[in-house]
């Protein structure tokens, strides 16, 4: 959440923080860890706001700046798009984030984000206690999507279960990342309902 602001500032593009119906309704205690000493210095350096030679501050001592996305001349808009594509590639390379849980030896991997990820983590523990080798991939960034988490070297499992509080908004991303090398099932509910632990575990046992 905090880094979303710094990322938006550094890359000069919007960062969207996704919530869901559960996150919007619940409260829980939160310990805010304020870094101190060397950690604070490191954070300050990392979060140092990007220099902004483009900023609109009045054109004293420089050529006028214009903040715009509209280009009339033939070819200019394409050039602008190519510049944006370069930036998107950089963001993909540097800012893709996910959390992997017990992937190395897993036969079956759950894939979930947000509220569903916490529920799925409990399901993974439940399945492990039954002797089933389950793991979890929790994308932290949905764009850029962490396709590398699905590489056989990271997650060799051949069976995946995507769990969402929707009818499958991430499902296609997972299928694209796996590119046919594994079986992908889905469980999801919408409109305020969410798959419970037992339902997910039952679905996972089928795989």
């Amino acid at each position, binding site marked *: 959440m905090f880094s979303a602001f710094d990322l938006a500032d550094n890359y000069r593009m919007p960062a969207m923080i996704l919530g869901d119906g559960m996150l919007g309704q619940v409260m829980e205690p939160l310990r805010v860890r304020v870094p101190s000493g060397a950690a604070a210095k490191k954070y300050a350096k990392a979060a140092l706001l990007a220099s902004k030679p483009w900023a609109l*501050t009045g054109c004293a001592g420089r050529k006028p700046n214009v903040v715009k996305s509209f280009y009339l001349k033939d070819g200019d808009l394409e050039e602008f798009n190519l510049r944006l594509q370069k930036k998107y590639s950089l963001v993909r390379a540097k800012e893709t984030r996910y959390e992997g849980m017990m992937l190395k030896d897993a036969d079956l991997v759950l894939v979930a984000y947000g509220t569903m990820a916490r529920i799925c983590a409990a399901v993974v523990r439940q399945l492990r206690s039954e002797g089933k080798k389950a793991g979890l991939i929790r994308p932290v960034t949905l764009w850029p999507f962490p396709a590398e988490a699905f590489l056989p070297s990271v997650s060799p499992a051949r069976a995946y279960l995507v769990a969402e509080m929707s009818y499958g908004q991430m499902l296609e991303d997972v299928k694209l990342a796996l590119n046919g090398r594994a079986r992908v099932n889905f469980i999801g509910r919408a409109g305020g309902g969410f798959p419970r632990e037992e339902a997910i575990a039952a679905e996972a046992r089928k795989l």
Partner: protein
Amino acid sequence: MRKIFSRPESLRNAVTHYCPGCGHGIAHRLVAEVIDTLGLREKVIGVAPVGCAVVAYDYWNFDCCEAAHGRALAVATAIKRCRPDRTVFTYQGDGDLAAIGTNETIHAANRGENLTVIFVNNAIYGMTGGQMAPTTLLGQVTSTTPLGRQADLQGYPLKISELLAALPGVKYVERRGLFSPQEIIRAKAAIHLAFDNQLKKNGFSLVELLSPCPTYWGMSPVAAMDWIKDTMVKEFPLGRIK
């Protein structure tokens, strides 16, 4: 030889994309002249609208920002609040300011933002092909009112300047026309006052300029100027509103 007339420093040496007889060239120049006179070129930030004047930043020679359609005053609010020591203005047409941006316009005015607004009213949508605007006169033929605007079908011309003048946050509203040298001089004086108000932190100032659109009015440039003088001012009377 003494030089008595030249291009303002705030205006670039550029060929504009405007149609022959369009009022934007005059309005751009007036804004540039006032900014030069007040010595603001290096301290000013302009916000361009969506509409024919979207590329105003290609013609002005100072910092400018684009805004989503109608949102110029919301963007200007942010710029001014981040940089209260800079002069910030919006330049908007009637489609931008009085149609899609009515919400942002009214709320920025009601908050009494210390901003200057140049509102160019040509009673029609120019960029998109001459459709009816909220400011279109009754009986005026446009591409979407081929029989002329009718009150029972399309409502009445929106007098947004009078509406805004009713708000306590608004300090200065004046309407001028760009149809004669005398009126253009008055328009410049009004623009000057609107910028001066901001420098004195007086609050929200707006100058409405009745401006010709010969292309979509289907008139010659001269006839378009006459139409403002003889017809448009009856619906939109000139003078200081507040």
